[in-house]
């Protein structure tokens, strides 16, 4: 499975010169908790609602401060066409919850640990279904073939 196929939620991005107020409004309107910050389409940082509070409000930044003042940078990326197992490996080896998915260096989507957990849960459910049926319902042996 390609990494891009595991991206469930749409990604939202803003340019680095947008303000904290703009970022907060976009998050609210789009229903997302994180925005990719891009420059010429390339991801240069990520800003979360938590960043707005801890690095912005808590430090007394004005609401018209630039969003790149509070973003996390650099961004860990993964190629859109790479195998999903590669994304698992990145999450395993980095303390991340979100991964920027890129194609030729340009941002195309955001993969979250939530996306992977949903896929894993669905796979586990599919695997356990026949076992559950076997436990709940009487086990039926196939009849032995008639002996001549």
């Amino acid at each position, binding site marked *: 499975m390609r990494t*891009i*196929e595991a*991206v*469930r*939620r*749409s*990604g*939202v*991005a*803003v*340019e680095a010169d947008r303000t904290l107020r*703009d970022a907060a*409004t*976009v998050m609210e*309107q*789009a*229903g997302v908790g994180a*925005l990719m910050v*891009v420059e010429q*389409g390339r991801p240069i940082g990520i800003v979360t609602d938590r960043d707005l509070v801890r690095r912005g409000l808590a430090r007394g930044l004005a609401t018209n401060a630039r969003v790149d003042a509070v973003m996390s940078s650099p961004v860990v990326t993964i190629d859109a066409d790479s195998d999903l197992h590669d994304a698992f490996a990145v999450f395993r080896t980095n303390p991340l919850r979100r991964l920027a998915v890129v194609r030729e260096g340009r*941002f*195309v*989507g*955001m993969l979250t640990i939530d996306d992977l957990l949903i896929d894993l849960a669905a796979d586990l459910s599919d695997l356990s279904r026949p076992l559950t049926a076997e436990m709940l319902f009487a086990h039926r042996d196939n009849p032995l073939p008639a002996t001549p």
Partner: protein
Amino acid sequence: MTAKDEGDVMRASVGDRIVIRGHHIGEPDRDCEVLEVRGEDGGPPYEVRWGDSGQAALFFPGSDASVQHFDHAKDERQDGASHAND
């Protein structure tokens, strides 16, 4: 049409509406208007405007998004006809 149709690529035009379905029970669907198509042949990303806030952002559709196309040429023809009748 969802983002996963036609080989994963959404196609949209300026003025189209993109709907993002809610992810949790009770979470409403959200929608935005396409202001500019930044990709090739109507592909993403799109510069969109969210609701009434007037805030624009770049949008990269996932499998939760679908596009509602509008016949812009038809709308313009109808507008022209209505103005002609004024």
